[in-house]
């Protein structure tokens, strides 16, 4: 959703009710700051005229990582990132319990990093360790390559790119086979 005042993404959503009439505003962080949204909710004119007003203002939180709001989630049924589950934990909990027949807490498998060991005893621990090691090397190389490109060390970047290519093609030789089409294999 775009900001009401500029083209940026709206991350602050204000819903004001004045005597039962709803007023919605959707603003980006900067415009929200500029307009002082949610800090002074009383419309000046009403206040000056001495009208009796009943005002409630809600500032809707957006996920700081992906900017998803709970309203967006309710509209589309999809969350934007892992952090959404933390940000909207309290609102999500009752919905999840309803959707999962009362199940409100995970009781199943957990990733190895949470347990500090291979998740399933049947999965070969040495293979898991080897894969973890190789993935670490790939990730480190990718980081180094990013750094080299940013600091314009092009020779080093070329060397790192070759190394990356070698490592990932090694992976592909082990796993990758020609496509169905290339083999003339019909489906």
């Amino acid at each position: 959703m775009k900001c009401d005042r500029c083209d940026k993404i709206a991350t602050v959503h204000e819903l004001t009710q004045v005597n039962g009439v709803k007023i919605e505003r959707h603003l980006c962080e900067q415009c929200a700051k500029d307009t002082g949204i949610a800090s002074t909710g009383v419309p000046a004119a009403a206040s000056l005229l001495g009208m009796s007003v009943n005002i409630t203002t809600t500032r809707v939180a957006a996920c700081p990582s992906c900017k998803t709001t709970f309203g967006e989630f309710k509209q589309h049924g999809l969350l934007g990132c892992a952090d959404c589950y933390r940000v909207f934990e309290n609102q999500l909990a009752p919905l999840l319990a309803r959707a999962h027949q009362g199940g409100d807490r995970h009781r199943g498998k957990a990733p190895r990093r949470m347990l500090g060991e291979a998740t399933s005893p049947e999965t070969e621990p040495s293979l898991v360790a080897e894969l973890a090691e190789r993935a670490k090397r790939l990730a480190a190389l990718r980081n180094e390559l990013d750094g080299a490109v940013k600091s314009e060390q092009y020779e080093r970047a070329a060397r790192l790119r070759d190394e990356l290519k070698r490592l990932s093609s090694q992976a592909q030789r082990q796993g990758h086979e020609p496509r169905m089409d290339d083999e003339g294999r019909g489906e």
Partner: protein
Amino acid sequence: MTRGGYYEPPKQPPSEPPPEWLKGEGEASDVVLSSRARLARNLAAVPFGSKSGPKERARSLEMCRDQILMASLSERIVWEDLHEATPMKRALLVERHLISKQLSKGRAGNDDPRGVAYSVPDERLSIMVNEEDHLRIQAIRSGLALAAAYREVDRADDLIEAGIDYAFNRRFGYLTACPTNVGTGVRMSVMLHLPALRLTGDIEKVKRAADGLCLAVRGFYGEGSEAVGDLYQLSNQTTLGKKEGEILAQLDGDILPRIVEYERVARRELLTKRRALLEDQACRAWGLLTNARLLTTEEAMQMLSMARLGALSDILPMDVKTINGLFLLVQPAHLQRAMNKDMDQEQRRQARATYVRAKLARA
């Protein structure tokens, strides 16, 4: 193909090997066509699909693809970049249940990078990348074999996770774009062939019972597809609060054996008490499949369903494996691949009838 009323079987089209899960082997394969286990997983460091731009999608694709290919998940794995694949290729993969309709529908080109890895030649394991979740790992087996299918995805999951940080938290488990998958992220499903329960009118009871047990009943092509050919996909709907083994035990050890037995009893009753009806249905289907000159996919599947029931009841001298294969081979993309040309709907109806006649003439 008729000359002065004389029927001549059409020339045999090229043979197309169906995937392993359509072989009609394994436990309870008279009722259970196939079993599938699927895990939904996401990367911790990249936003989920709906909030991912082209750059982020390219990053998740690269991270997942590298790890999948490195992980030695199967003896031979094929990788397809789906954003570069032809519509025909994508349609074939959908019909083979290797990718979802949703994944096939994305845009072409680099702003919507997505892919699939699958094991060949068995096509038992497939891993979709950048669908609703970054990773959808699935294994399909012939017959009632949910435990084996789950073991296979569990192992693939461990080996992929060795090099990737998954989105996970202790309260909600594996975090997914849609919270209906959160927790274990596991969906276990079976493809059931229930023609006798439809003929006896008891199929609605099964659907109501499944609904009461929080199980989803869907068609041959999953979510949003109608049940054609008396094929029903039954799967767990809840993923949070139960262990994977508990979900498996509920389906595998309790609900499914009961449904299988219910269908078998209905078949026996038809055979003993309403044999004329059963023979009539099977022989009409045989007559249509071997004589029709135009066939829609739905009609072909419905007739194949009755032929399958007839073959399993020893009314028709047919090989069940051939019929299982035809459920797939009459689908539009497979038909066009077999005929080696693009065809419109009308041409396909004619080609489908010709193709089925040729296949059955040989069988």
